[in-house]
């Protein structure tokens, strides 16, 4: 639901990088999105296209790189990939964990630009 804000922040950051690198156009953008980041890929694509409009990123391709979730069991001291997206049950001791180590990322990962 906040994909619009994320897309706009992403384009702003991308344009700053573009200027810093002395390029004049962005041809593609890669976003890194965690499996539990509450970002809907379809809504993200749409918001991205809108946010690019009228900027040097207009028409740029969007690639989404997924990051799988990784939870942490404080009792066993191990990281594990949860089987459910709703709750994280430690495969070793069976306790539930509320701690996520990876999977909430929302990052601008890579840019393709001209020159």
């Amino acid at each position, binding site marked *: 639901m906040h994909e619009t804000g994320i897309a706009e922040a992403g384009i702003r950051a991308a344009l700053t990088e573009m200027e810093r690198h002395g390029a004049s156009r962005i041809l593609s953008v890669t976003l890194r999105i965690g499996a539990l980041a*509450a970002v809907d890929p379809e809504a993200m694509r749409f918001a991205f296209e809108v946010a690019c409009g009228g900027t040097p990123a207009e028409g740029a391709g969007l690639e989404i790189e997924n990051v799988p979730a990784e939870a942490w069991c404080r009792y066993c001291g191990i990281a594990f990939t949860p089987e459910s997206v709703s709750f994280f049950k430690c495969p070793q001791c069976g306790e539930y964990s509320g701690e996520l180590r990876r999977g909430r990322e929302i990052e601008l990962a890579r840019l393709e630009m001209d020159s």
Partner: protein
Amino acid sequence: MHLLHNEFPQSFHHKPKARAKPGDVITVDVRTEDPADIPPPGDFRLGGETRFVRVDIPLLAENNRLAEENRKHFKEHKLKVINLVSGPGAGKTTLLARTLQELADTVSCGVLVGDLETDSDARRLRHDKVPVAQLTTGSACHLDAHMIAHGFDALQMEEGQLLFIENVGNLVCPAEFDLGETVRVALFACTDGEDKPLKYPPIYRSAHMVLLTKCDIAEACGFDRAQALENLAKVCPDAEVMEVSSRTGDGFDRWIGFLRDLL
């Protein structure tokens, strides 16, 4: 505190500055303007060389930075901040109105309430001793740290002790936006059905406390309390859970006690 606008990527409209005194209910416009200073499209260089650059920029970093500034600022003021989050209609305003009735005569409170357009929640929260500011978010479906900085600025709270924030009714986005609060309290209404935590886990997982609300009508709704508590224990095993009714006041002793213990 004020946060410099040139450090924040989005520009905001600001109505002429008015501050809410106790008993006042004011409106603060925190809608974002269209991004203004984006350069126009560049030239197409057909067939030219392109290059890839790895940048790794977290896109919520700006909000997190502003949230830390808020947190520091609140700490300096010895102010404890409670961020109430839930889906639409879980009972945030009703809970808050009763909380103010029970607490505001003895504890100095302030309220920020986020809403898309209307100010009806802010008016329901009016209290002689409490400054209330309604944050008009426009299309934003959650509050962010920048809005809170402006909202707090609009409250006249010299010796404030508790600041309540009623977030926009939304089970998704508010989970991702740190406001600089001391505690985040997620409301879960008996009328929502016991599987809400399994369907929207991030918001419950991000909360320090879960309030099971509308307990007076739990039975009439056929609410499976044991199942709900089990689901919460799986999703957010570290959150404290309390059951309340803002209609009858059941459970308020514990809730008010929790708030007093924050002081």
